[in-house]
C-alpha cells in the first residue's frame, strides 16, 4: 500500500520566488531577485556582510516587510503555505516566530510570564492552555526561574531567551533569528546556538538564523545561504560554504578555516570536532 503523503511535510516552511524589495525613499534595492526554499525541519544559516540584506530578508519572511515598513516589493513569499504579502505579520504570527538583534526592543510586557503568554492571549487561547504552553517553553529554554521576574531585571542573555520563548510559545513552524548572539558573551552565545539546534531537532521547527560570527554556528547548521548586495550568492552545505568563501568572499571565512587554508590542510573545518579530527589525522595533536 503506498504511503500517504503528509501535506504539512510537503509544504515548504518558507518559499521565496524572485523577491525584490526597496525601502521607502531608498536609492537602491535591499533585496534583488531572491529565490529560496526552506524545507520543514532545516536549520539554515544566513551569512553575509553588513547591509547585504539579511535582516530585510528575515523581515520579509515574517511580514514586517512590506506591511510594517512600507516600500516597494515584487515576487512571492509563502510561509508554511500562507501568502505573506497578503497575510501580514499578525496572521503570520501563528506560523512564524521572529527574534531580533536587540532583545530590549522585542519585549513589550512588564513581567516575563506576561511577555511569553502574550502571543497566546492575542490569539484567544484559554488560560489553562496558556499556562501549560508557557511552562513547556520555559522548561525547554531552561528559564522557569525567570517567570516571576520583571523584564527590566534581566541580563541581556536572559532577555534574549525570554524573547526566544515568546517567539516559540505558539509552536511556530518557522523561527527567524536576526543575529541573536550579537549582544551576548561567547559562552551565552554558544549556549543559545546549541539550544536552537536542540529545539530544531526535538520540536522539528525550521530555523533561519542570520549571524556574523559564523564559526559559532556553522557546526549547528544544515545549510548555509550567503547574501551579497541583496541577492543570494551561495546556497549549500556548511563545508561547501567554507570552500566558496575562501575563493569568492574571504571576509566570510571563519578564522579556523583561514588557518587551515594557510596551512594547506583540507577539508576546511566546519567546527571544533572537524578541526581536531583533521589535526589528529596529520599527527598534529
Amino acid at each position, binding site marked *: 500500500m503506498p504511503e500517504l503523503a503528509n501535506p504539512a511535510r510537503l509544504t515548504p516552511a518558507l518559499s521565496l520566488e524572485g523577491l525584490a524589495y526597496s525601502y521607502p525613499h531608498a536609492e537602491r534595492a535591499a533585496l534583488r531577485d531572491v529565490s529560496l526554499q526552506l524545507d520543514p525541519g532545516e536549520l539554515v544559516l544566513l551569512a553575509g556582510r553588513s547591509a547585504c540584506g539579511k535582516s530585510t530578508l528575515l523581515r520579509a519572511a*515574517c511580514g514586517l516587510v512590506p506591511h*510594517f515598513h512600507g516600500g516597494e516589493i515584487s515576487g512571492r513569499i509563502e510561509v508554511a503555505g500562507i501568502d505573506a504579502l497578503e497575510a501580514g505579520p499578525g496572521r*503570520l504570527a501563528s506560523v512564524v*516566530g521572529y527574534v531580533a538583534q536587540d532583545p530590549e526592543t*522585542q*519585549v513589550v*510586557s*512588564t513581567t516575563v510570564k506576561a511577555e511569553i503568554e502574550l502571543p497566546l492571549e*492575542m*490569539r484567544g487561547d484559554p488560560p489553562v492552555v496558556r499556562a501549560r504552553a508557557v511552562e513547556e517553553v520555559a522548561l525547554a529554554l531552561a528559564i522557569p526561574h525567570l517567570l516571576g521576574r520583571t523584564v527590566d531585571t534581566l541580563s541581556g542573555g536572559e532577555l534574549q531567551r525570554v524573547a526566544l520563548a515568546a517567539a516559540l510559545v505558539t509552536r511556530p513552524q518557522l523561527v527567524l533569528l536576526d543575529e541573536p548572539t550579537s549582544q551576548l558573551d561567547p559562552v551565552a552565545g554558544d549556549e543559545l546556538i546549541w539550544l536552537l539546534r536542540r529545539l530544531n531537532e526535538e520540536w522539528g521547527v525550521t530555523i533561519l538564523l542570520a549571524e556574523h560570527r559564523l564559526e559559532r554556528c556553522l557546526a549547528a547548521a544544515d545549510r548555509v545561504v550567503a547574501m551579497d548586495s541583496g541577492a543570494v550568492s551561495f546556497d549549500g552545505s556548511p563545508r561547501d560554504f567554507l570552500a566558496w568563501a575562501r575563493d569568492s568572499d574571504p571576509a566570510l571565512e571563519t578564522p579556523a578555516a583561514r588557518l587551515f587554508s594557510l596551512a594547506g590542510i583540507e577539508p576546511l573545518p566546519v567546527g571544533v570536532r572537524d578541526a581536531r579530527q583533521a589535526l589528529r589525522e596529520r599527527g598534529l595533536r
Partner: protein
Amino acid sequence: MRSPFAYTPRSGPLQAASPSAAVAYLGSLVVIAFLYSNALVLAAAGGAAIVAGLLAGAHRAVRAALWMGLTLALLIVVVNALVVDRGETVLARLGEWPLLGSVDVTAEALAAGAVLGLRAAVVLLLFAVYSACVDPDRVLRALRPLAGRSALTATLVSRLVPLAAADGARLRDAARLRGPAAAAVGRAPLARRLLAGSLDRAVDVAATLELRGYALEAPGGRPARSRSRHDRRFYAVGAAVLVAGIAGKLIGADAFDFYPAVEIGSGPATVALAFVVLLSGFAPHA
C-alpha cells in the same frame, strides 16, 4: 538602576484598579490643572497628586517628579519674567538685551510664570504617578479593542514613558561613567536624544507587537482582570472632581488675574474647590 517612573507591581487600590478607572481619576486632576489658573486650586491639584502618589507607594516617582517639576517651573518663571514686561510692579530694570529689547522684571510676570510652572509641575507629577502605578501591560490589553489595527499607537500610549525612563536611566549611568573631567551634556540635547531614541525603540516594539498578533481581531469575551472592586471609587472621585471643577468655573472659583496687577481669588467657592481637589488625593488610600 530602575527608573523611578517605571511601573512597580504593588497591591494598592490604584494599582489594582482597571487602567480606565485610574486614567479617569488622574485625568480629572489633569483637567483641573489645565482648566484653572488660580494658584490655590493648582496647588491643591499638586497636593492631591503628591498624596495620591505617596498613598499608592510611588515615593520615588513623586520625589523625582517634584524635583523635575520644580526645576521646570523655575525655568518657566525665569523665561516668563524676561520675555513679558507687562505688569504694574516693576521689580528690576535690566536695561537693553539683544533680541529681547528693554527688559523689565515685574512681579506680575513672575506670578504668571509661577502659575504656568505650577501647572507644568502638577501635570508632570500626575504623569509620574500614572507611570509608576498603572500597569502598562493592562493598558496595552485595554487598548486592543480601540487601537488593535495600530500597534504603534498602542505602543506609544503604553510604552513610550517606560522606554524613555529606561533610556534615561542608561544615559545617566553613561554620563556618570565618563567621569567628572568629561564635558557635561546639556539637558536639552539629552532630552532630544531621549525622545528620539524612545520613539525609535517604540517603533521597534510596535513591530514586535504586530508579530505577537496584536493586530489580529480580538477574541470574544472580556479580558481577565479588566475590572477591580476599586474601580467605582476612582470613577466616582474622578467624576466628583470634574463636576466640582466645571461648577467652580461657572461660579467664578477661578478668579485670578496677573495683569495689570496680581489678584488672587480666594473666595469660598475657590477654597471649597481647592479642598475637594486636595481631598481627592486620598482616593488611593487602602
